[in-house]
């Protein structure tokens, strides 16, 4: 066994039965280590994500008690997942590689406009629209990345911001004949999924109760794929190289890595998910507002990621959920009628509280809580 100890996942799958026989006697701590190994496994992450996205719209919009408390609705569930994809991809760059981009609005908006333009002029199949828009976002990310990564630290952030704002102004006037300028891109028409399932219609039977519409199912599938791919990236050589660059860039170069290309890879990978999110934003809203390219969009994804927890796989998704819940539910006057106009303030207070008290974000709070409970259990 000792040769395999560097490979816990494989040992687990190969010798699962013998391991369970051995740990059966050591009760709680044994169960815990076993669970931790299972939890790290790729299939577990995927299954848990599927369960999560299947229950989410039901809990938010239809379940008794919980949905009354949350005041959510179906479309909000889709929107949270769309932004969630953007945020978990963004964290590859911010949380893992340690690069703060302030220009991801360009890629998100680029994906959104590409999808909108395609649907209005070329194809209506949601899969094709999203696929091509993602390719467009990848190309855009390569260009922005190559230009911005010439400088590090704050200069990188400023360069990304500058390029993104340039694209915003291009879209607002000179390219208005394509983008619709200040009015945004209208005439978006998303066709049925695989030629037969209208995105706006309800899913049959139990799936309808849980997931709601085909549109949500489509977006949820994209989220599951995104989580699976990002989980794989984090467990590939890239995961550890990104962390190495984050912690000690010079040393990473002096063990032989082409740091600039890895940074570009991180930028393009995060841009891919930004583009996917943007394209799904169009599929979700069937309209592309000009503000999707504006710098505040870049700011929003930073806030979502930091709020949820940088450097955690699912934290940014939670951050997106909190942000959008405040933006859409609290702003509507919930839980108090008078609070509506102050939703920005509420968001600010939540943000400041989390950042000051839990620097690792909401996800960090969850982790701390779990660690506290397990130590308590083991002390018994």
């Amino acid at each position: 066994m000792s040769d395999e100890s560097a490979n816990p996942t494989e040992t687990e799958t190969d010798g699962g039965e013998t391991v369970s026989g051995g740990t059966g006697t050591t009760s709680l701590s044994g169960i815990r280590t076993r669970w931790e190994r299972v939890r790290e496994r790729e299939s577990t992450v995927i299954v848990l994500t599927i369960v999560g996205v299947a229950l989410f719209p039901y809990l938010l919009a239809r379940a008794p008690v919980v949905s009354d408390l949350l005041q959510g609705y179906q479309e909000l569930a889709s929107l949270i997942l769309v932004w969630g994809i953007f945020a978990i991809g963004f964290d590859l760059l911010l949380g893992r590689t340690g690069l703060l981009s302030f220009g991801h609005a360009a890629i998100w908006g680029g994906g959104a406009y590409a999808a909108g333009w395609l649907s209005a002029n070329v194809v209506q199949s949601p899969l094709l629209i999203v696929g091509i828009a993602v390719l467009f976002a990848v190309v855009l990310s390569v260009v922005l990345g190559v230009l911005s990564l010439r400088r590090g630290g704050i200069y990188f952030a400023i360069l990304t911001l500058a390029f993104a704002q340039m694209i915003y102004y291009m879209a607002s006037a000179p390219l208005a004949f394509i983008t619709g300028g200040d009015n945004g891109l209208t005439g978006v028409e998303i066709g049925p999924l695989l030629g037969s399932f209208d995105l706006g219609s309800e899913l049959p039977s139990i799936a309808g109760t849980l997931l709601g519409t085909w549109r949500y199912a489509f977006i949820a599938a994209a989220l599951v794929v995104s989580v699976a791919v990002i989980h794989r990236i984090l467990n590939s050589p890239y995961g550890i190289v990104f962390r190495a660059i984050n912690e000690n860039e010079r040393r990473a170069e002096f063990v032989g890595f082409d740091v600039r290309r890895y940074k570009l890879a991180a930028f393009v990978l995060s841009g891919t998910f930004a583009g996917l999110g943007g394209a799904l934003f169009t599929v979700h809203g069937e309209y592309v507002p000009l503000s999707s390219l504006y710098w505040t969009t870049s700011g929003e994804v930073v806030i979502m990621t930091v709020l949820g927890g940088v450097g955690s796989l699912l934290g940014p998704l939670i951050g997106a959920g909190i942000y959008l819940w405040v933006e859409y539910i609290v702003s509507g006057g919930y839980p108090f009628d008078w609070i509506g106009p102050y939703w920005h303030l509420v968001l600010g207070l939540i943000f400041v509280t989390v950042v000051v008290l839990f620097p690792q974000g909401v996800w960090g709070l969850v982790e701390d809580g779990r660690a506290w409970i397990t130590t308590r259990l083991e002390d018994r």
Partner: protein
Amino acid sequence: MALLETRGLVKRFNGLTATDDVDIAIEEGERVSVIGPNGAGKTTLINLITRMLDPTEGDIVFQGESITNDAPYEVVQQGISKSFQTASIFPELTVEENAEIAALGAEHGSFRLNFLCHRNRYSAVDDGTKRTLEAVDLWGQREVPAADLPYGDKRRLEIGIALASEPDLLLMDEPTAGMSPEETNATVSLIEDVKEELGLTLVLVEHDMEIVFEVSDRIIVLNRGRVIAEGTPEEIQGDPDVQEAYLGGVEL
């Protein structure tokens, strides 16, 4: 043919000449120490070889090929590795991950498009990691975050990272600076072991004369950017120029 050669290497910083026409040759399997008073240009020389600095004039040749225009990571990939004077480690990663990164750099080259391949498929990297950590005697602490190691262990991890890059030539910048006598002894025997087991060529920049005379086959003495003497420890010990320049005339 020498493993590493510098030819007429000059580095000027705004009129200050840090290295002045330095020609050195390191043979394969040698242990060479570079010594000299503060400001003699030792660190500049190392930084020129690792390509952290661009030379003003001259050429650096490694294994018969010029590396003067290579990027630092390319130099590492060709087989020159450096251990830093201050432990330059990845503090929040575990000891094992620290070594794994270096082993990955050696196995995979400077860049690869393998972001969808799971790390557990690369057993050669795991072997390299384990071998290195056993060599620097840190395998038992592999799950400890590197930042939590005591100072001496951090320095040994630093050397481990340099070794895990599987170099042909290892440059060590004051490997025992700031260490306690026990840690210094442990590091010296580590250097000896590494030399024996891996057949590395070593270039050592060091202040501690005891160590220099103990581990070196040959010593190069720099003063004001120039090579003023070169020879076996015995020859250097008896060289009047060296005593004058470096030791201020004090008898060793």
